[in-house]
């Protein structure tokens, strides 16, 4: 381990990754604003679903635009490597804050971006090919500790591998669900559309998808298989972007996977672009070795050790819960479970009180379409919403209101059934990491991990 920690490698892959990743995030942020999603998702809604333990993250109203400005500008600063340390901290905090405002916008790829931003805060990604290196000769270094580059590769590997492990279940492999449902929806795609009508295609997609996820990280790491693995990354992600509405994620993955390429590849790009931008040679290539400040080094080691222990174990927390993970979603998020389920739900809340008041709630009075859709299939959000309704009606003439929900949820083509016990007063229940006993048992089995 000690020998590994003292191993050095070219800084080029990390620098190139920083530049590309920052650029992608800047584009992504700009796109988000341009599509009007800031208002739609973070300003217009009446109510937000904060994450458990992060209730202090509040929506910012019109200032959300400011937050996005900070995020976009810091992403650009990270890309060009100007005031890099400060910019990377601002990027991590602003991006993560945005993602924590409302659970209904949760996407694994946003979490992945947050995770990468967190790592960039500590990594020496600005020692080459950056404005900082251009201005500050003392900062320039062509060699960084090998673990700095490897940790980025490692997290990419883990993302794929965990996404593959999540597919090792009977619905995915034996029933070709949800592919069987999703593919026929695309049977009018030019050329390949008719293929999607066949069950075989759904099985092939499921199995290839699973094998791909499980193996591609390692194949990218191995220099012999790398060109094929990278080609498959490009094809796979372009195909998914064609078939499913998953925004920037495919492109971010295509760019991120470049980090596996050898230093010479990145150095060539940096040389070329650097010359174009009239970088001094020392800021493009350097023989210097980057060294963490003595006081900081053990801290960074500790943070990264803890970080990886967390990353490795956290996705398995679902094992601590009874009942079916896909049904209860206890331990579902932050675990690289991507595109695994077709889940749809319908909820109707009734608020009553001891004085005989009774109101059937129209969800659209309180929630946006997206929020209602997300809430209807996720028990923790149902509870948060029930509490919101309790407080709302308590303020509007109900005395100690009771909140009940009539829910109906369909998972992977199974006929819908109640997700929540209809006779449980949700106003009295509290959220915690403990199992939610008021979730109706799934009464069906999805075998596997």
């Amino acid at each position: 381990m000690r020998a590994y920690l003292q191993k050095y490698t070219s800084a080029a892959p990390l620098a190139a990754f920083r530049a590309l990743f920052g650029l992608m995030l800047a584009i992504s942020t700009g796109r988000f604003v341009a599509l009007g999603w800031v208002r739609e998702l973070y300003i217009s809604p009446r109510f937000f679903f904060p994450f458990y333990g992060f209730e202090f993250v509040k929506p910012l109203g019109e200032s959300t635009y400011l937050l996005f400005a900070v995020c976009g500008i810091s992403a650009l600063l990270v890309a060009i490597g100007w005031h890099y340390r400060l910019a990377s901290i601002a990027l991590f905090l602003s991006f993560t804050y945005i993602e924590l405002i409302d659970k209904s916008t949760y996407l694994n790829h946003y979490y992945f971006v947050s995770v990468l931003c967190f790592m960039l805060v500590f990594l020496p990604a600005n020692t080459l090919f950056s404005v900082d290196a251009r201005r500050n000769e003392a900062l320039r270094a062509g060699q960084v500790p090998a673990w700095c580059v490897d940790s980025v590769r490692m997290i990419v590997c883990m993302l794929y591998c965990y996404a593959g492990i999540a597919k090792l279940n009977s619905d995915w492999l034996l029933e070709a669900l949800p592919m069987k449902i999703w593919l026929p929806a695309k049977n009018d795609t030019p050329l390949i559309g008719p293929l999607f009508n066949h069950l075989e295609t759904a099985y092939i997609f499921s199995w290839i998808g699973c094998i791909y996820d499980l193996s591609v990280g390692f194949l990218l790491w191995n220099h012999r298989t790398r060109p094929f693995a990278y080609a498959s990354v490009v094809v796979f992600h372009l195909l998914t972007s064609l078939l499913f509405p998953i925004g920037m994620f495919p492109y971010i993955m295509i760019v991120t996977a470049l980090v596996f390429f050898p230093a010479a590849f990145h150095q060539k790009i940096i040389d070329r672009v650097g010359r174009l931008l009239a970088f001094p040679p020392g800021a493009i290539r350097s023989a210097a070795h980057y060294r963490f400040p003595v006081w900081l080094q053990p801290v960074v080691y500790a943070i990264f050790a803890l970080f990886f222990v967390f990353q490795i174990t956290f996705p398995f927390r679902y094992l601590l819960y009874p009942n079916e993970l896909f049904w209860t979603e206890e331990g579902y998020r932050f675990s690289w479970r991507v595109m695994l389920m077709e889940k749809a739900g319908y909820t109707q809340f009734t608020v009553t009180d001891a004085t005989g008041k009774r109101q059937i709630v129209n969800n659209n009075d309180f929630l946006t379409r997206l929020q209602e859709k997300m809430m209807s299939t996720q028990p923790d959000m149902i509870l948060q919403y029930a509490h919101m309704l309790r407080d709302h009606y308590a303020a509007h003439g109900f005395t100690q209101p009771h909140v009940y929900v009539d829910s109906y949820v369909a998972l992977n083509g199974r006929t819908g059934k109640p997700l929540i016990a209809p006779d449980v007063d949700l106003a009295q229940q509290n959220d915690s990491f403990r199992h939610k006993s008021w979730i109706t048992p799934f009464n069906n089995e999805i075998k596997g991990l």
Partner: protein
Amino acid sequence: MKKYFALLLTLLFLGCSSGSDKPGPEPADEGKDRSVMLKALAENIIVPSYDQFKTKFDLMAEKSKAFTAKPDAQALGEFRNAWAEAYIAWERVELFDFGPAEKQTIRNFFNIYPASEAGIAANITDPTSSLEVPASYPTQGFPALDYLINGLGANDTAILAQYSTDKDAAKKLAYITRVIARMESLLGKVMSEWKGEYLNTFVSKTGLDIGSSTSLMVNGLVLHYERYIRSGKFGIPSGAMANGIPAPEKVEALYIKNMSQILAQAAHSAYVDFFNGRHAVTGEAGPGIKSYLNALGAKDSGTGKPLTESINAQFQVAAAKLGVLKPNLYEEVKTNNQAMKDTYTEMQKAVRMLKVDMTSAMSITITYTDNDGD
């Protein structure tokens, strides 16, 4: 040679019969081809249903002219009968609230009830009042005509007096003409679009993303069942939805009294027929939502029961509850409201299946916001 021919014919015959015996699994691509489904729905159901409605509507317009020309008891009776038949036929097209009908928001101008008596009175006084703004919805269409020909007096004599001896008689007659002209113009727009370019657009936009035909249609259909059949006809009048307070005056066709259940039945059976792809003229089942869901193999993984069977079974339960109600739902709310609420409850179960099971099996996102209950 003859023998060979006979053998060939036999084989051919066998081949045909074994193929046509089972109406069951069509070739996968055929059943899942949304353009086939959309074309059949448009040509076999939507357009002919509009044609059928137009015939009834034209008759009503004709009878209304006769009535406004000579408002006597016989003309009133004929107008009323033609109105009732047109109203029933309307229930068989109201569900097509996507494409041209959605663009023209024809439902808002044809069947928003209860009618606003004050609004109608104001419009009668002021013939230049707008019939385009949302506030004018309950002052026109079938509900307004219901009020005008069934609700203006306690009996026919009193109603006829409104159109003959009353000081505003001429204005009232003019308002009938105005309401019918407005309906005619809107219907004309919707129908000419269906018979023109829109048909191709409808059939060719085969995607399932927001804005494509199937998605628009399914969204419109689920909304129709949820808000306009379940809530409008049962949930709201019975009070099953808001605070449990019955509102019998909110039934459809309030003034004629003995038609609300018949209209609800027409709407419900039209809905079931559309779901099953039944030809509007021949009644034969063809490509439609049912065949598409079957081709997708949508079924309960536990019991293996096809989803379309479950949905049809629930439709039947709801139709049975609806079938035993008396024609006058106003009276039913007042005297037999539990039966109204039971109908609502069974319809609610169908809503869940349509909104969750069906859309999930089809991979369609529900994009409309439901604003009922207030």
